[in-house]
């Protein structure tokens, strides 16, 4: 049963990835502007020999479908091409930038889940009373705050006014970065036994994590609240209370369990978007993550890099969706056993 499910999902995933690469490949061709003029200097563009050499070097003289097939063949061999901007293989670039994004996205997601579920459940239990109103007002503020503005405000307060936090980057300049193992500065420092560096790196993650968390929590709380409100009205919750179970058990074993499915769906999407689209937050905290890489590649029309990022985003969404579907099965026996 599980095997069949994974097989089905595997086929869907492959189709999806081919589709994404094709669409992003075509879209980037349709963008007005030319990779050559973005890369070559004004003078070099005047020289037909250089232009021809450039086109031959990057395969731009081939028809479009050949370019795509060549690209796909390379991708399947783990070769995402070379970034025209950094001059390094795109795969290496991604392996540098993705861990940086993960370093803030993972803690932010975990925090958001814990806080979102706790606050959302609290609001649902206090339905239409003071606590609920306060939470709803809070989420409204959280949701309507632009992330870049919030990032600037927390920088102003914690860095400028209070001086308790670094201004940006992943590590203070006077600290020698640890040897790269996982790509996470915090973990790599800890692995090297350099606790001062690890602590410094954690301090650098604090503000970006805070900003990402505020936004995600606000959204999660709303979902959790409405999901739990529905469950609280269910007969099986009344039945659980009629059994004389302590409130804590009714809420955790019965209410949370049943309301978790929609929450997981939203969390998956929130995490995927955090991994792929936190450009503004990364920009303000000088955080060398995927968002920044994508932004710079796109503005330089760096085709291999843009395609690489698109592929990465597609992989993230499909993997997260797969995990979400597996989680459904774990939580709900009706899905698992049917």
């Amino acid at each position, binding site marked *: 049963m599980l095997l069949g499910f994974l097989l089905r999902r595997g086929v869907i995933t492959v189709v999806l990835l081919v589709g994404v690469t094709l669409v992003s490949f075509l879209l980037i061709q349709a963008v007005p502007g030319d990779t050559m003029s973005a890369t070559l200097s004004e003078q070099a563009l005047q020289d037909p020999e250089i232009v021809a050499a450039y086109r031959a070097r990057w395969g731009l003289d081939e028809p479009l479908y050949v370019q795509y097939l060549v690209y796909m063949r390379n991708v399947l061999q783990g070769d995402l091409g070379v970034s025209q901007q950094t001059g390094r293989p795109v795969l290496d670039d991604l392996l540098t930038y993705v861990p940086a994004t993960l370093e803030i996205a993972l803690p932010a997601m975990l925090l958001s889940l814990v806080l979102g579920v706790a606050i959302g459940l609290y609001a649902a239990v206090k*339905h239409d009373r003071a606590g609920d109103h306060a939470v709803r007002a809070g989420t409204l503020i959280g949701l309507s705050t632009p992330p870049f503005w919030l990032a600037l405000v927390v920088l102003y307060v914690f860095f400028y006014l209070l001086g308790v936090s670094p201004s940006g980057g992943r590590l203070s300049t006077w600290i020698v970065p640890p040897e790269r193992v996982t790509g996470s500065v915090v973990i790599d420092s800890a692995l090297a036994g350099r606790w001062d560096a690890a602590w410094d790196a954690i301090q650098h993650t604090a503000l970006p994590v805070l900003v990402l968390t505020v936004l995600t929590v606000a959204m999660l709380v709303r979902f959790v609240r409405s999901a739990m409100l529905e469950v609280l009205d*269910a*007969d*099986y919750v*009344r*039945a*659980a*209370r*009629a*059994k*004389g*179970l*302590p*409130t804590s*058990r009714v809420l955790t*074993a*019965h209410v949370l*369990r*049943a309301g978790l499915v929609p929450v997981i769906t939203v969390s998956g999407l929130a995490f995927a978007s955090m991994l792929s689209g936190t450009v503004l937050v990364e920009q303000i905290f000088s955080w060398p993550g995927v968002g920044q890489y994508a932004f710079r590649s796109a503005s330089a029309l760096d085709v291999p890099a843009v395609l690489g990022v698109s592929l990465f985003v597609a992989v993230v969404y499909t993997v997260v969706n797969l995990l979400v579907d597996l989680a459904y099965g774990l*939580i*709900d*026996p*009706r899905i698992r*056993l049917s």
Partner: protein
Amino acid sequence: MSQILSIENLAVTLQGDQRVIEDISLEVPEGEIVGIAGESGSGKSLTAAALLGLLPDRSQTSGHAWWRGGAEPRDLLTLDQRSWNRVRGREIAMVFQDATAALHPMLTVGTQITEHMRVHLQLSRRDARRRAVELLDRVRIPDPEASLRSYPHQFSGGMRQRVAIAAALACQPRLLIADEPTTALDVTVQAGILRLLEELRAETGLSVLFITHDLAVLAALTTQAYVFREGRVIESGATEELLFHPRHEYTKTLVAARPQADDWDEPEQVAR
């Protein structure tokens, strides 16, 4: 015969001054099955909810509900949260109309039968499961051992209601409130459940407050009955007397309006 429950002039007002129960007095003798009949909105289910402290938030009650099934007589309407959790499930248990909705879809049958045993009776996991097997066997669930690990959706409607009854009986309550437990079931399955309830009463001395809108069920199962209308008791007495010689106009209408008049003489008779 002693009354295990005496409701005296119960009145319930929901949030927004909506008076849903005007004045209800009712007695449940120990070891008997007492019926409540009435159309929807007559206050049957809210009376049950009041007896378990499960009225909607911000409801107001007046009157008394003297409960003599515990260590000492207590007025259920004055209990605080902690005392409630000792009465609910332990002394008074409830079976709901729709077992499909009243069983948690994501918890195993075993969990749902044992969780309150472990709280109320402080049983170990093993002892609770052993007792759960006995209970499932008692309510005639085939292969009780395997059923413990099954989920509600793997059972038929009638079997689910049996599971719900087993869960309700887990802590050996003195009173079972059954709120239309057979309405969602077809007739043959319904007869089986009614027979089960009567057996339980006869064998364990369980008192049952049986809520229904089905007069045939009332006749088959109960000895005493109350007819509710618009939050009041309009007629009460021995069930047969009440159904065959109704005095109140409303009861007469109810009796006359029952769907199949020809079946009246042969409702699903329960072995007494």
